[in-house]
């Protein structure tokens, strides 16, 4: 340690590829061989569960999948757990996509829910209708919210929606709830044109980076409940007693966070020791 910095400099300026390697190992290990660590249930998830629990059989929910396939990977536990609740309660779903990749999602999602679909005899056309990619931009959200049947006449396969439960929907205000799964696509537009205009309850399942922004909407009463990313989905799986991909990934989630904290601590110890020793400041810290 006679040279400038020594071990402290190494700790402050470690190669970021070590972060990648360690993160890869601590995430992959528990995914291959889960430990079964306990998890705590947050108040936000309990609130989400309680709000969904108020739905009754026959209620019509506008189920908007404002996510790409990659975003679905993060929201998957929440999406599956929420739909299990919907199926169990017998609510009717009108499913719309906010991204063209939504076309690939129904096959993937309903394949995972097949046991529940069979158990509760939940069928397309009777209990849920997929109207497809209808939210390319804000004008489309506004148009659909004002006059549903002028903008949507057929489902995503081209079959008429006349004679289905969607006959009751004239505008967005006729839905009993909006259930949104979002990576940040049409959500703000929906709040502006549906929630604010028609005062419909809306629940949200959001990716992690968008949660702080949506917390303000939750606090203002624009959202009734918010489910935060993979962790929220895992907690919801626990609450509905249906373990799934969320709970399986919580070990990796925990270890990933702890390893990041350890790297930050190492960096700060190195930074403090190095700058105290040399009086130097390194702008970036690690290369």
């Amino acid at each position, binding site marked *: 340690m006679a040279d400038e910095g020594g071990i402290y400099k190494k700790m402050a300026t470690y190669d970021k590829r070590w972060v990648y390697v360690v993160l890869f190992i601590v995430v992959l290990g528990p995914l291959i061989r889960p430990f079964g660590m306990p998890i705590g249930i947050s108040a936000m998830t309990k609130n989400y569960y309680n709000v969904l629990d108020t739905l009754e059989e026959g209620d019509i929910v506008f189920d908007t999948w404002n996510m*790409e396939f*990659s975003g679905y990977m993060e929201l998957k536990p929440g999406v599956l757990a929420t739909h299990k609740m919907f199926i169990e309660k017998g609510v009717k779903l009108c499913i719309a996509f906010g991204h063209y990749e939504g076309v690939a999602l129904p096959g993937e999602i309903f394949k995972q829910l097949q046991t529940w679909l069979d158990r509760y005899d939940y069928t397309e056309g009777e209990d849920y209708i997929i109207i497809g990619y209808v939210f*390319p*931009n804000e004008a489309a959200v506004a148009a659909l919210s004002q006059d549903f049947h002028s903008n949507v006449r057929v489902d995503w396969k081209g079959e008429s929606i006349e004679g289905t439960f969607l006959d009751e929907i004239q505008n967005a205000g006729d839905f009993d709830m909006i259930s949104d799964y979002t*990576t*940040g696509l049409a959500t703000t537009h929906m709040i502006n044109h549906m929630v*604010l*205009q028609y005062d419909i309850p809306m629940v949200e399942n959001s990716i992690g*980076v*968008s949660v*702080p*922004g949506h917390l303000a909407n939750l606090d203002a009463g624009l959202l009734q409940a918010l489910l935060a990313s993979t962790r929220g989905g895992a907690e919801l799986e626990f609450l509905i007693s249906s373990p799934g991909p969320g709970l399986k990934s919580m070990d990796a989630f925990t270890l990933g966070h702890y390893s990041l904290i350890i790297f930050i601590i190492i960096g700060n110890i190195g930074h403090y020791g190095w700058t105290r020793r040399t009086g130097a400041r390194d*702008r*970036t810290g690690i290369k």
Partner: protein
Amino acid sequence: MSLVAKICAETDTRLIVPTGGGSDTYITREAAVDLVRNAYTAAGVPELFNEEDMPFLSGEQYAYTPGYVGILVRERPGATIMTGSHYSEAMNIAEMANGVDSITITAGCYTSNMAALACASDYIMLGEEQPAAGAYLSRDPAQMASIRVQDIYKFIAIGAMLLGLIAVNVGSDVINRLLST
């Protein structure tokens, strides 16, 4: 961007402007090309303007990202300036720019990314700092007036918040009802 283009024109610095990343960006490139071409013409060096350095990469962010990162790795720019709404590609670009030792300046307006970009970028303009910077540097009266008006509105909003705080604490919801839809 016009200021950056003007400086690049005056100093004969190569300016690369990749556009894309969202479904609203299909027509952005045409506006960007006009803006940069005008800046080079105004600087007296229209021959230095190269439209090939302004590729439209993709309207899809996950196709735009590797295109942008590829440009960073191949061209190794001295500075990377990100303006506008950058969604998930922002972190990819900022980290890769750091990896090629490029100074990163971010002026984003997607609020969810601000925290992450503040960590990843060397310099960041938060929220309204970008239009304020544009107004300050251009000295355009209309832009400066806009910033001034926004400041006035912010004072009005602060006043409304304080009134609402007092009203709620004395048991009245008049401000709340007034501002609710």
